[in-house]
């Protein structure tokens, strides 16, 4: 059953997450009229921002006037429910967030935090973007990526398996496999 909005659009939620980090640049980018407009044009009706330890508080919008409804919170013990009900996820480049989202088969835009030292997170985001499992953006290019994205071009991520590593350790001790 699809929830109908006044505008005749069914509910489609975009969930933004920064995990346990502080990523004001992303929160600000999502909070901008540009990005909100792009999301609305693409058919999204709700934007929920998990802002973590950031100091920039986004503006809330009720969406009653036929625009994107925006809400935010800082932390939640588990964001799994938000991920499951979202139609699009925009996430910081932490591997935990990335793989939790990919396992659910949800479209994902990963935004790399350029302020982090060494920034090894970029490697993972770029590798997965190369393989078309997700889109990669910076806070500055986010609205362009949303504008140009084609969700059908995404390739499902084949889930990993920790059993081969366990078997490797097992065989080191000549333990029989379970």
């Amino acid at each position, binding site marked *: 059953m699809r929830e109908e909005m006044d505008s005749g659009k069914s509910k489609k939620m975009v969930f933004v997450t920064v995990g346990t980090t502080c990523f004001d640049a992303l929160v600000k980018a999502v909070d901008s009229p540009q990005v909100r407009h792009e999301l609305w044009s693409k058919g999204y009706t709700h934007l929920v921002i998990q802002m973590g330890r950031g100091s920039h508080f986004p503006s809330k919008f009720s969406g009653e006037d036929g625009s994107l409804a925006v809400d935010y919170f800082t932390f939640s013990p588990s964001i799994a429910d938000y991920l499951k009900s979202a139609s699009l996820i925009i996430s910081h480049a932490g591997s935990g967030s990335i*793989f939790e989202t990919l396992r659910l088969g949800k479209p994902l835009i990963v935004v790399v935090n350029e302020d982090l030292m060494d920034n090894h997170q970029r*490697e993972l985001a770029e*590798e997965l973007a190369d393989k078309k499992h997700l889109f990669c953006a910076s806070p500055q290019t986010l609205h362009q990526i949303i504008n140009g994205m084609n969700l059908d071009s995404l390739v499902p991520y084949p889930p990993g398996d920790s059993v081969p590593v366990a078997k490797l350790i097992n065989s080191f*001790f000549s333990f029989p496999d379970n």
Partner: protein
Amino acid sequence: MEEYLEAGFPKLVALLVAIIISLIAIRLTYVLLRCGKPFVVPPERVSTMIVLGSGGHTAEMLSIVNVLNKERFSPRFYVAAATDNMSLQKAQVLEQSLLHQGKGNAEAAQFMQIYRSREVGQSYITSIGTSLIAIAHAIWFILKIRPQVIICNGPGTCIPLCVAAFMFKVVGLRWSSIFYIESIARVRKLSLSGLLLYKLHLTDQFVVQWPQLQSKYPQSQYVGRIM
């Protein structure tokens, strides 16, 4: 007589030092050669130290522990940094669910915290002091637990522990087999922890999760991605 001793004493000391260094070198060579060699006779079970780290590290580590044979890798000791509150909780949840499934055994898992060498953003001067404390704490842990297996995947907390364990190997106090699984987030370059352990040959098995890394570091193993 005394003159002769005085003349000979420094030479005697030098000789002793040379002998000790040679013995250590021989022992070190033996340890490095034996490292990485599988056990022909399986031990009944092996005490296992599992090093947890913030964020993705713990998630990856627990996904490995989840599929390990719990009777063979027992008892289990989980170690996290003193400032990390979430990781041990997650490990406790896993161990409790094992008990509920009836897969637990009499020896309960233990959970402990270790001092960090350096907090994010800490000045490098004070880091020297805290690193020394961390190393001392690590030596204490290894001395107390003497794990037969150490599994880690990259957080800074694992370096003092792996170095301490390796020292114990050389000294002959306990042979700890060290398994390092580089985080899935490392695609083209190793983490600092990984690089140190790889270059110093401190691990028995060094696992990477991307084929590019395996090509770059040929002594590593690639068995797919775990996430």
